[in-house]
């Protein structure tokens, strides 16, 4: 395999990883605040369909991304209200959110199925995208790809270098202590859940306007769940989310290129790869229970009420 083959594979890997980075970094913040939102898949789908509809209607990709973000944030607000204000079970509510999002997106999206949309344009940074190797590999992606990396730095900085990040982590480790030192636990968790929703919406918008610029029912094909698995795989650390997303992007892309290289495997088995890889990776990480015990936010998934 020479460089001419390798470059398009690496480029597709980065593009396939981008929605995972957004969704998983969002869920990472949500979980670091102690809330487990299993509704990522549903929020992503609703974000994807909202972005697609807005993009078709207005012709503006900026509005499309804003619409996707707002729609998914609205769903996450519903989740936050149920789990944080009404203290419902986070697992059940998250599942409900995904089931609702799958239904809602299929219903709204029916009118848009099969329509073409203009893909998010690729940038030509400093006019150097024609540069051999480095040009296509580093300087010729669309804007959301670069922003996803900036987002990683922002999240990393927020969690480890800011006071607000410290308080957010306190809410995830011990909401009682956070409350006692005067942090508004519920308000912080609300914001964390909505941040996760907004990013799942951006991930969805990226799916329907960049990765596969179209709408079909169930467009996300489990990527929301893979993003959830990525957070576990990353042991709740942003850098490992980034690396994990590229790893999974690579697995997804492999299924597209394997047949091109004459691998004689039925396409269905190649399509299983990302899901099988998710399971294998989870097994590797969870094998030693200490890994999870030491890294998982101690109060993840547990309800907290300041009066109780």
């Amino acid at each position, binding site marked *: 395999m020479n460089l001419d083959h390798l470059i398009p594979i690496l480029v597709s890997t980065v593009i396939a990883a981008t929605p995972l980075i957004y969704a998983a970094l969002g869920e990472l913040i949500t979980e670091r605040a102690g809330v487990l939102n299993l509704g990522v898949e549903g929020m992503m789908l609703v974000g994807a369909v909202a972005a697609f509809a807005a993009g078709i209607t207005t012709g503006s990709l900026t509005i499309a991304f804003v619409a996707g973000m707002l729609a998914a944030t609205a769903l996450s607000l519903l989740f936050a209200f149920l789990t944080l204000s009404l203290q*419902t079970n986070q697992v059940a509510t998250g*599942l*409900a959110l995904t089931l*609702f999002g799958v*239904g809602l997106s*299929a219903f709204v999206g029916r009118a848009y199925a099969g329509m073409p949309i203009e893909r998010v344009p690729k940038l030509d940074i400093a006019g150097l995208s024609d540069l051999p190797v480095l040009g296509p590999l580093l300087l010729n992606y669309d804007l959301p790809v670069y922003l996803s990396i900036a987002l990683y730095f922002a999240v990393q900085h927020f969690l480890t270098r800011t006071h607000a990040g410290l308080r957010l982590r306190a809410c995830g480790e011990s909401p009682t202590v956070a409350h006692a030192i005067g942090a508004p636990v519920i308000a912080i968790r609300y914001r964390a859940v909505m941040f996760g929703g907004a990013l799942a919406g951006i991930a969805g918008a990226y799916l329907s306007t960049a990765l596969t610029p179209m709408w079909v*029912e169930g467009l996300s*094909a489990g990527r929301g769940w893979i993003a959830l*698995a990525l957070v576990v795989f990353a042991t709740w650390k942003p850098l490992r989310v980034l690396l994990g997303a590229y790893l999974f992007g690579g697995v997804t892309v492999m299924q597209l290129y394997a047949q091109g290289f004459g691998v004689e495997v039925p396409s269905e088995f190649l399509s*299983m790869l990302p899901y099988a890889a998710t399971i294998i990776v989870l097994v590797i990480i969870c094998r030693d229970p200490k890994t999870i015990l030491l890294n998982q936010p101690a109060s993840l998934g547990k309800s907290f009420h300041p009066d109780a």
Partner: protein
Amino acid sequence: MSQPDSLLQRLWPFRLERRATPSAAMRLASPLIAGVAMALTGLIVFLILGQDPLVAFRVFFVAPFGGSYEIGELLLKATPLMLCALGLAIGFKANVWNIGAEGQLIVGAIAGSAVALFGSESLGALTVPLMMLAGAIGGMAWAAIPAFLRTRFHTNEILVSLMLVYIAQQLLGYLVHGPWKDPAGYNFPQSRAFAEAAILPALVEGTRVTGALIMALVLAVLAWLFTAKTHAGYRMQVAGLAPAAARYAGFSDTRNIWLALLVGGGMAGLAGISEVAGPIGLLQAVISPGYGFAAIIVAFVGRLHPFGIVLASLLMSLLYLGGEAAQVELQLPSSITGLFQGSLLFYLLAADLFIGFRLRRIVRAVAP
């Protein structure tokens, strides 16, 4: 110190107060409240879509009771939902979150179909029982994967069972596009039609209901006996309600996880084979409109109780039929069903708040 009432307090002079004991009445009323709230939401959605809400309401919620064929369809669609939800509920009670019933249903259907496609000529009257057995084993085998990974490697069963749904769908796609494709089927992605001996006969002339319904009802009774009357069922309930107590009592987590997933998988597998050996009659690329996922909602709406699940599966079946009717008669997308299903579960979870809490009017003491 007296503060002026905030605007919010004047508009909504209530606060939530924890009940001394959870309300048993609310536990039963909550699904009804959720159902009514969902129907009201439906009316609003129909209005927004420019439909006459009364006509839409009749098509969606009344027409499915129109005659014996219609009621048969209601029972037919309720069967797989009931089977899947009964198994899932046993796990949910023990905090084992198997959400991959859809995949277990598919693998059950594949395993049972193998018997139908390759054995029906030699097996005779044994065909259907062996298909059912194979279906249950197929579903159990698929559920055994998350059970093994959870008990051996501490891997979260939610994510694993869900990932296995996508893998099962691909496996089914491979079989009906590849080795099991009917050579005389004009290249459609489906298997040969099952032989007569491999088809579940209709229970009542003029309907499509099969013996699978009876099986599901019997299993509902067995599930009730298991949870209410056996020690294994008791152990699982304790594990769900008070995990620490279960550990002190020496109840094995491993055994609960295996039991929950095997029962859930086996029941989902039975649902799968009952579908392909019943109304479908062959194996095709899509054999379930998400029964395995809808069953999660059925389990909750049915209060994780076998008899509640029987009723809840009828409601969910009504939503499926209503969605189909809305597509035919009102040209609405049938995916409206998913919208109703999701909102039903939301309303239920919200209404469940009042099992543990009640609304109290805020009475301000007047300064003397």
